[in-house]
């Protein structure tokens, strides 16, 4: 596989460091007036999301990683894997395991599009869009005047996620939810 030298480092570059696929977040040149230059690099591990730092002597290189970030349509889950299909008309499918799906599994809806990071063609990370629209499958009727809960009640969505919703929400309602916070935004008319 190709490699990149420090003078080619830039934000967004996908590289393999210590065997892990990473994206470069920042590349700072450290250079004393009369001495060796170094590159202080901040990475995000694309498998576990961890941000970390390493300083390289200028001129050192790292291996390029075969990493692609693409949009894929969610198809179904079979208990062990979650299956996605490319949206480019190729109908190619990949299977994401629990390690790759992580929190995205709370926001899955068939035929919705998700951001999938592929490393050597295998999915290592799945991200939902910032907002999804999901149907309420379970919730209490929410009696008027019941102030004990402070105006909200829990509701289970078709993806399995449980969110706090206003009392007027009913089973069958489609809700718009912020996937980053898990917060109810509004009801969506079907």
């Amino acid at each position: 596989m190709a490699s990149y030298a420090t003078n080619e480092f830039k934000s967004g570059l996908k590289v393999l460091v210590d065997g892990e696929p990473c994206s470069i977040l920042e590349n700072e040149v450290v250079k004393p007036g009369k001495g060796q230059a170094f590159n202080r690099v901040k990475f995000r591990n694309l498998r576990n999301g961890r941000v970390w730092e390493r300083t390289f002597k200028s001129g050192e290189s790292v291996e390029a990683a075969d990493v692609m970030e693409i949009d894929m349509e969610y198809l179904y889950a079979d208990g062990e894997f979650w299956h996605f299909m490319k949206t480019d008309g190729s109908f190619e499918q990949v299977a994401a395991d629990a390690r790759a799906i992580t929190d995205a599994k709370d926001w899955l809806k068939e035929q919705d599009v998700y951001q999938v990071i592929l490393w050597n063609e295998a999915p290592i990370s799945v991200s939902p869009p910032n907002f999804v629209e999901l149907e309420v499958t379970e919730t209490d009727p929410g009696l008027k005047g019941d102030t004990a809960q402070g105006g909200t009640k829990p509701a289970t969505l078709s993806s399995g996620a449980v969110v706090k919703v206003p009392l007027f929400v009913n089973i069958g309602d489609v809700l718009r939810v912020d996937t980053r916070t898990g917060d109810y935004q509004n009801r969506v008319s079907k």
Partner: protein
Amino acid sequence: MSDKGYPALPDSLKLRASVLAEIRRFFAEREVMEVETPLLGTSTVTDVHLQSFEVRAHDLSEIPLFLQTSPEYAMKRLLAAGSGPIYQIAKAFRSGERSRLHNPEFTLIEWYRPGFSLTDLMDEVEQLITRLLYRQKIPRYTYRELFRKHLNLDPHTVTVQRLQQCSDELIDVRGADLDVNDYLQLLMDQKIEPRLPDCCFVIEYPEAQAALSVVAPDSEGVPVAQRFELYVDGMELANGYFELTDAVEQRSRFEGDLVRRRQLGLPEVAVDEELLAALEEGLPSCAGVALGLDRLLMALGGNWDIRDVISYPLS
């Protein structure tokens, strides 16, 4: 603002103009003559850590020339020819250096004082800084005392293994063939500079970091470089030397550079024979200093990035 290619804030342009005027007044009062020496030359530096720009005529009709990385060599030739004390406000060019503190093209204020000791010149730099920026006495620390205080090691005697261990504990650093000075400079930059006071001088550098300065024993009998650096806001602002005048020693240092260049696979360069000839003619005993004008403006204006003080920084 500067990422979009817009000119720097008008404030920093005006500041540059007024600082330049003040600097010229400063030197006029002291009867130091302003000079201009060529930016283009047929030779370049041998320093393994400096990459100069090579330029060609657009139609390739001429031999390649180099843009200067500093006006030092030309100014030393003037000194050898009897110029007396001189200063220059000059553009310098260094390839491969771009960061919040580096623009490939930048401005140096460089001056030389025949008959001055290193301390005399430090005093003069202090006078200039006091006039422009910092109203208190500027403390002076030796390289050794900073390393002892912050990292508990003696930079002049420490082994590369101990430095590697110290580095590994503090910084995740990778690189083949890092020598004692590579580690010292990295530790200085990453672990000591952020803890320096707002303004200070650092003196008595390790022998291997002497470049074109004289090496002499310190109070403990250890050979150290007669060199100082001025730090402002954690930035290297000025680099001063008690200049090496011995042509034989200078040639030998240049040849050492050439050997290292070959070992590192760097492009071959020729030593500057015109500089060496000037040293053979006789460079008067002098101290010299180069100060980064752009960084001085950053310190004055409170700017984080050098691009904010340069009219059209290279993107």
